[in-house]
């Protein structure tokens, strides 16, 4: 399957131009948006806390100390206080940062990979389009949290199953987005050119269509990180998420709610953490969309 050298050159040039424009514009726009910068900063801090959790605290996040329960913020030895089992809130907070990153990242990657593959197939091969889109309609008809509830009910409640539930839930929307994009890209001249030059389907899909569909996938991923983290906490509130000893932020809130009146920090600290992180992923997703979506914002610069 040899390509005509000149043809290849043209195709490359076209792609390069597209890509270079994106990235140059992207970086410029991002740095002009203070919110996006704040978002990046929050995510960066979260990553630092998550990675460095072992070094940033002397306490095991699950170790109880029943003689020092519900200590308030600013206590000696526990600057963020302790929870109702005397566990150090700071170490629960930063280990929680790790958990929420892992949950968000794995569920988004799993969902996005599956969704992307389905979307590519549906968009590229007309034969598969009908069946894949009908299945995704079927899944769309279940409201998100209800779908997750059903899945967790079937699989049992654990963090792994929450991840699975959230991934499955994100598959259809990702598939749709990718499919839409593939349909547009497919019509572009250079793809038609490649086809006439005899390129194979897989090669076209993975080397040319996929890279050009990355923009919406990345935007979707960033936005969905926010949804994933938020949904995990909602499932934990309904008692279907992490086991209660795990320092998962949502589980921390639902556990702390019982003590809201004596020890409000049990609810407020993880609540603010979730809100900040979800907010960060939302603004970053928003900014990425502004940058990567070529249909609008041409004159945003």
């Amino acid at each position: 399957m040899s390509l005509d050298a000149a043809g290849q050159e043209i195709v490359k040039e076209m792609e390069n131009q597209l890509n270079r424009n994106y990235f140059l514009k992207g970086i410029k726009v991002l740095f002009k948006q203070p919110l996006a910068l704040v978002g990046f900063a929050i995510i960066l801090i979260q990553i630092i806390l998550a990675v460095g959790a072992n070094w940033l605290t002397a306490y095991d996040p699950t170790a109880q100390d029943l003689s020092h329960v519900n200590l308030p913020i600013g206590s000696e030895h526990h600057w963020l206080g302790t929870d109702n089992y005397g566990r150090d809130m700071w170490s629960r907070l930063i280990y929680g940062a790790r958990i929420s990153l892992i949950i968000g990242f794995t569920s988004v990657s799993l969902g996005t990979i599956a969704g992307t593959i389905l979307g590519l197939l549906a968009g590229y091969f007309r034969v598969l389009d009908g069946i894949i889109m009908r299945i995704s309609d079927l899944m769309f008809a279940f409201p998100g949290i209800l779908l997750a509830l059903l899945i967790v009910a079937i699989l049992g409640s654990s963090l792994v199953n929450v991840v699975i539930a959230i991934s499955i839930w994100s598959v259809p929307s990702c598939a749709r987005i990718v499919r839409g994009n593939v349909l547009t890209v497919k019509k572009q001249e250079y793809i038609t050119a490649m086809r006439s030059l005899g390129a194979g389907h897989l090669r076209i899909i993975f080397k040319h269509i996929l890279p050009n569909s990355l923009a919406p996938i990345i935007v979707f991923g960033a936005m969905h990180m926010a949804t994933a983290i938020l949904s995990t906490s909602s499932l934990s509130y309904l008692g279907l998420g992490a086991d209660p000893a795990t320092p998962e932020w949502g589980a921390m809130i639902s556990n702390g709610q019982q003590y809201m009146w004596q020890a409000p920090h049990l609810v407020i600290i993880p609540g603010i953490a979730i809100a900040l992180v979800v907010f960060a992923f939302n603004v970053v997703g928003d900014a990425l969309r502004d940058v990567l979506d070529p249909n609008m914002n041409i004159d945003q610069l």
Partner: protein
Amino acid sequence: MFAMIIRRMVQLVFLLIGITFIVFMAMHIAPGDPASIIGGPTATKTDIIQIRERLGLDRPIIIQYLDYLNGLLHGDLGISFQTNRSVAEEIWIRLPNTVNLAVASVIVSILIGIPLGIISALKRNSWLDVFSTTVSLGGISVPHFWLGAIFILIFAVHLKWLPVGGLHAPFWTPQGFKEIILPAITLGTGSAAMTARMTRSAMLEIIRADFVRTARAKGVKERAVIWVHCLRNAMIPVVTVIGLNFGGLLGGTIITEQVFAINGVGRLMIESISARDFPMVQGGVLLIATIFVVINLLVDIVYALIDPRINYD
């Protein structure tokens, strides 16, 4: 257009049958036995066997499914395992509350989202833009159950302005209005962000459109340009998003109903899933899915009517 509607209706029927099959099988595969839940921890083996027989759970699963499907085709959603009431009746009692909440929160999201969206579009990249984006995205970022609990604490328990929970009247009546404020704001802030975002980008696009430029060039006052020309045209995509949101909200009410003690379909679903009340879960999912699909269809039809460029055939 007409052909499209017919085709979608036919698809809807198959979609719903597919959903009943999946939910039916999923519920039966799931660990947890409705009979041992009804029996409770005190039940003996004989108790449980007798309950299973009464519920018909001792029959082969395919027979149970066909039996269910047969009932469904005759418009019978079955009887709840738990309460012995008809599933349709149980849902019918709760549906108004959920719709009430969903509509009220859509209104809240419009009241918050559209002004914020307009402000950020008109004052693009100013501090007002940053402020309104932060507020709308902040709303979507806070967990509902957390926000709800804090609202109850402030406005119901301490200030005593509003009732703690419950919903017993439509939101336009005085009682219903008081009851709905907190839940509607809790739920509405989430979708407000989406509405704001959509309004902003639609406005931006319209402002740049030719006819607006023409209007400006013709010397139409700036205010009139914005309110008459831009806003009206920008509302088309916004209405779509609101419509789609509404479908999603019916499922999203689950958490809010739980926190504010609202007797809605979402809460019924949680209870029924955890009680393994199979007919109830199937009926509820079927209803929510139907509403969702129908709203989608309506949105598409409205869209096609408004925008002649779209061709579904």
